[in-house]
């Protein structure tokens, strides 16, 4: 069984909708995941099952895609609710861990 989705992730998604100027509501569902309704789309967000190299599953109806972290989760959600969003074509290299 996967862990429940932390409150901080729920808050982040709520604040993200506001930051993107997208009207929507987010609620926990009976399965322990989240349901986000915005732009006429119902998006389901859940923890990935154990044993998968991903942390999240996100998508509409049966079309779920796995993402490995919150950065990917936000990208996936915004792509579904904001038609003007274009994913950044560059990556930020990891900081050197030490000087």
């Amino acid at each position, binding site marked *: *069984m*996967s*862990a*429940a989705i*932390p409150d*901080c*992730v729920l*808050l*982040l998604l*709520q*604040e*993200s909708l*506001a*930051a*993107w100027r997208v009207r929507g509501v987010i609620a926990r569902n009976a399965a322990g995941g989240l349901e986000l309704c915005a732009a006429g789309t119902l998006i389901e967000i859940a*923890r*990935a099952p*154990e*044993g*998968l*190299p*991903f*942390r999240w599953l996100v998508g509409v109806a049966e079309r779920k895609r796995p*993402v*490995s*972290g*919150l*950065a*990917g989760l*936000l*990208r996936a959600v*915004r792509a579904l609710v904001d038609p003007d969003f274009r*994913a*950044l*074509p*560059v*990556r*930020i*290299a*990891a*900081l*050197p*861990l*030490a*000087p």
Partner: protein
Amino acid sequence: MIPIWVLTGFLGSGKTTLLGRLLKSPGFARTAVIINEFGEVGLDHDLVETSDESFVTLQTGCLCCAVRDDLVLTLEALLRRRASGTVPPFERVVIETSGLADPAPILHALMTQPAFEGRLALAGVVTTVDALTGAQALARYPEAVKQVAMADRLLLTKTDLLQAPATSLIARLSALNAAAVLSTAAFGEIAADQLFGSEALPVALERWLRTSPAAQARQGGHNHASDITALALVRAAPVRAVALTLLLEVLAEHVGGDLIRLKGLINIAESPERPAVIHGVQHVFHPPAWLERWPSQDRRSRLVLIGRNLRQAWVEALWTALDAEVDEVSGAVPAAADTTGEGLRPEPRPGRASFPAR
């Protein structure tokens, strides 16, 4: 390392007059100047280079690549001539932008060009503001607002023409960018080092981080006239490097177009004695600089963002959630049933890094 200063300012704000004066002063000796065009004021100097940057204002979309080619070629040629002795050994470079230019592509070019590594370093942005017409320019032209918001140093020009102190204009400048040092110049007269003198990085950064939150509190953190917002975030606990990387990545991806400047002094968990200095312009982030030691007793991470329509609550929530996720994945905070054991991995996407890990 040769410092590069970018001199910008709206049309008619006195950039060329300023340069004309400075080029005659001993304090400006050993300075190479790159200008986009010769102005009305004759610039009699051994180290003036021309760079045909005027096309920048005619382009649409991302200008990074367009400006990079010309500016980088000009700078590389200048460095070659310096090495060969065909120009004096300049110790500072000043790049003057055109009056309608967005400084960001120029900063991007300077921040991301590998050929400059170890030879040239962006020192800062100086923005001239006409004391007489500056308020109107800020009200009408977003380019003028951006030039002010990006500045490290602001120069109020033509103060000799004022009938009364420019109180409201100064208040406006403070609202847009309280962290920038504000100087005044009458008849273009100002000491070169006051504008283009290098300040020790810890000193400059501490001033930036100290000023912005205070100013934000005074101004309510938001300038409604232009939607320019200054956010200040503080974290007492050290930040894991990967959490900071993810934070910068999400900021770049979701608000990069609206992010004008970002500066931070970060207590990295993996390097508790040597804080990291981070610096970004829009979606491009400079490789972190590591200070030798903390500049003060304050070891909290401090991050200041200036941009359009930024939401403090979103950035706070983002940082908190990323911290929690990284802690959970690394095992610092055990998850009740999350036993995937997988680390955070970047999503597979094409492209290149905004800054290389060096």
